[in-house]
C-alpha cells in the first residue's frame, strides 16, 4: 500500500467489487475509458468490464433515478455525480425516493445504491464547482452519508458501502484528497488509530501528534473529509511547538453518536475545535455541538471553537478562495489563540 493514492485506492476498490460481485454496475458521465472519469476514479474499468460500466447523458436526476430502480431490482449500482455541486439536481430522487422506499414498503424492498461524488474547493473552480453540499443531506432518515479522508482507507470504505451496506449511501470524496498518498498507518509525526464502535458502521479514525501515553493532550479537534488535507502540515507544526492534539475523523458523518473516546478526550483537554468547510452554518459541526451539550452540559468545562467559512459564495479567484476556506494557517492561528487563553 506504500505510495497508494486516494484515487488509486478508490479505483482498485471499484475493480475488486466488479470482480467479486456480478451485481455491481457503475453509472456516470464520461466514466468510460480512455477518459476514465473527470477525476480518473473509473480509469481502466470499462476496458476490463465493458458490460458493467454505463456512460450517461447529462441528467443527474435520471442517473440517480435509474440507479435507484436498478438497486430495487437486485443490482448494486455505483452512481457517479461528476461534481457534488450538481447533486441538487438529484435531490428529489435521493431524499424522497432512495431514502424513503425501504421504510414506505416496510422492508420489502431495499435500495443499496452508492452515490459517489467529489465535493470541496481549493482549485479555483468557482462557486458552483467548489461547494461542500453534503450538509444538506445530513439528517435525512434512511440515508447514510460517508466522507473519506486519506487517514482512512478510502477503498475499504467504498467496498463496504457497495457490497455490505443495504442503505443508500452518499459517498463524499473531497477533490483535493485524490492525489494524496494514504496515511492510514500514520508517519513519524502522526499516530493513526481506528476506533471500534458498534454504533458506527464506518470507522472513526483518531490521530495524535504524540506517541507517549503520559503526555496530556492540549486540544481535541473534531473534523471530517477534505480538512484532513491540512492536518499533515498542522499536526507537524503543532508538534514543533509542543502542542499535543487528539484529532477525531469520523467517516459516517450522518451518524450523530459521539464515540466514548471523544468524550474522554474533551474531558482531558477541556478544549474542542471543530472544522468544517461548508459555508453558512447549520451544518455537521452544529449537530456535534448539540450532542456534546446533551451529553456533557454542566458536567465538564469545555471551551468550544469552530472554524468555518464566512457566509459567502466561493470566489473563483484563487487567492480569494484560499482566504475564505479553512486552511492550515487559519487552523494553526486559531489553535495558538485557544491555547494561549
Amino acid at each position, binding site marked *: 500500500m506504500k505510495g497508494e493514492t486516494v484515487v488509486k485506492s478508490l479505483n482498485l476498490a471499484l475493480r475488486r467489487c466488479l470482480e467479486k460481485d456480478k451485481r455491481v454496475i457503475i453509472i456516470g458521465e464520461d466514466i468510460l475509458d480512455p477518459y476514465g472519469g473527470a477525476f480518473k476514479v473509473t480509469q481502466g474499468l470499462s476496458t476490463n468490464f465493458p458490460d458493467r460500466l454505463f456512460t450517461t447523458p447529462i441528467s443527474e436526476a435520471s442517473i440517480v433515478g435509474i440507479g435507484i430502480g436498478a438497486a430495487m431490482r437486485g443490482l448494486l449500482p455505483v452512481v457517479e455525480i461528476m461534481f457534488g455541486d450538481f447533486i441538487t439536481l438529484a435531490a428529489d430522487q435521493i431524499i424522497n425516493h432512495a431514502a424513503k422506499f425501504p421504510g414506505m414498503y416496510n422492508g420489502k424492498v431495499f435500495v443499496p445504491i452508492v452515490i459517489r461524488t467529489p465535493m470541496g474547493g481549493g482549485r479555483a473552480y468557482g462557486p458552483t464547482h467548489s461547494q461542500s453540499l453534503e450538509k444538506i443531506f445530513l439528517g435525512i432518515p434512511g440515508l447514510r452519508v460517508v466522507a473519506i479522508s486519506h487517514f482512512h482507507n478510502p477503498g475499504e470504505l467504498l467496498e463496504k458501502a457497495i457490497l455490505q451496506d443495504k442503505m443508500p449511501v452518499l459517498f463524499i470524496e473531497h477533490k483535493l484528497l485524490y492525489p494524496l498518498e494514504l496515511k492510514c498507518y500514520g508517519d513519524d509525526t502522526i499516530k493513526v488509530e481506528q476506533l471500534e464502535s458498534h454504533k458506527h458502521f464506518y470507522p472513526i479514525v483518531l490521530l495524535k501528534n504524540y506517541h507517549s501515553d503520559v503526555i496530556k493532550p*492540549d486540544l481535541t479537534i473534531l473534523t471530517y473529509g477534505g480538512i484532513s488535507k491540512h492536518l499533515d502540515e498542522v499536526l507537524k507544526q503543532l508538534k514543533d*511547538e*509542543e*502542542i499535543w492534539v487528539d484529532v477525531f475523523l469520523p467517516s459516517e458523518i450522518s451518524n450523530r453518536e459521539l464515540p466514548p473516546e471523544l468524550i474522554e478526550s474533551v474531558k482531558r483537554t477541556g478544549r474542542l475545535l471543530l472544522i468544517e468547510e461548508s459555508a453558512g452554518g447549520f451544518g455537521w459541526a452544529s449537530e456535534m455541538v448539540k450532542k456534546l451539550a446533551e451529553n456533557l452540559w454542566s458536567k465538564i468545562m469545555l471551551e468550544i471553537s469552530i472554524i468555518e467559512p464566512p457566509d459567502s459564495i466561493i470566489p473563483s479567484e484563487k487567492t480569494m478562495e484560499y482566504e475564505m476556506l479553512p486552511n492550515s494557517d487559519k487552523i494553526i492561528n486559531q489553535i495558538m489563540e485557544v*491555547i494561549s487563553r
Partner: protein
Amino acid sequence: MRIFRVPQVTNQDDEMLLIRWLKSEGDFVNVGDIIAEVETSKAVFEIESEGSGFFKPLANPGEHIKVGQTFYILLNNREEVQKPIELRDIEFEKNAKQNSEIENQPKRWTKKAELLAKKYGIDIEEVPGTGIIQEADVERYIRIKSEGKTSQFNDLVDDIYSDNRAERVIILGGGRGAVQVLDVLFRTPKQRAVGILDDNSELYGKNIMGVKVLGNISAIEKLKEDNLFDTAIISFSNDIESRAKLFETLIKKGIKFTNVIDPTVVIHSNVSIGKGNVIMAHCRFGSCAIVGDNNFFSAYVNIEHHNVVGSHCTFGPGVMTSSRVTIGNKVKFGTGIFIEPGIKIGDNSVIASGTILIRDIPENSLVKTKVETIIRRKDIDNKSQ
C-alpha cells in the same frame, strides 16, 4: 544566465507532460516566442519564452515536469550554451530563495515553552538551553530558581507579620541526629525547621519528615545571603571534633546558632545556656548552672545546681551529675553515668557507660569501669549447667 521554471498553466495541474520543444539548443529566442508544448490533464498548451537570449533546455520531451522545477535557461553568448551547466548554480539559486524565506522567523522557543514562562512570570529569553527552548527547559529553570527558597520569600504570614514570628532553623547533618532535632522542633511553636544540609549528595532534594535536604553544608552561606533562615543547629553528635570544628568555622562566618530544647526540659532559676545546644526530653538544669555552646544532651541528663559545663560535649541518656560538678570542653559521656558532687572533669576526656565518678578526672582521660562479661550460657531447653 537566467533560469526559468515551469509555469502554472492551469489551476488544477501541478504536473504536466512536456511533449516537445519548438526551439533547439543554441537558438536565439525572443520574449513571447513559443518554445514548448505541454499537455495538462485536459489539453495541450503552448509555453511562451519569458525572456530573450540563447536557449538551452533543461527538461526532456516525454518527461513529466512539475510546476516550479527548472525548465530552461537563456544565456547571453552562444558559446556559453556549449558549456556544461553547473547544477550547483541552479540549486544555489533555489536554495537561496528558500533560505531567505526561512530566515525571516528564527524560532527560538516552542509555543508551550512561551506559555509556561508567561504563567510563572519569567522572561523566556533568560531560560538557558541548547537549540529551541522547550517546555521541559522552562520547567527545569523554574525549579532551579525556586529551589533553596523553601519557605520564606513568599510567605504570606511571616513576611507581613514578622514581629515575633517563628525562628527559622537550618539543620546541619541529615542523619538520625536530624530526626531527633526535627522531633523537638515540631514540638516548639517558636521555632520552625526550614531545611537540612548534608554533605551526602544522594540526600539532596529528598525530604526528612517533610523537611527538604537543600544541599551540602557549604551551601549555608548562600542560604544566609538569601536570608532563608535565622539560625543553625548541628544535629550530628558521634564525632566531637567535627562537631566542634564546624561550629567554630561557622561562627567565624557570622552564622548564628540557636538552642533546640525539648518542651519537657526543666530549667531552674538563674541558669545560663550558650548557643548551639541540643537538649532532648526530660533533661534538668538546676539553679545557677552554666552551660557553654554546641553541646548535645540526650534524654534524661541531669545537670545539677551550680554545675559548669563547657562546650562541644556530648551526653548519652541518663547522665546524672551532682552539685558543683565542672565539666570541661569536648568531653564525651556514655550512658548511665553518675558523678559525685564537686568533681572536675578535664577537656577532651571520654567517660564510658556505667561509670561512677568519685574523683577528679584530668584532661585527655579515658575513664572506663569494669567491662561486662558473659558468666554462663543459657541452655536451649532452659536447664542451667
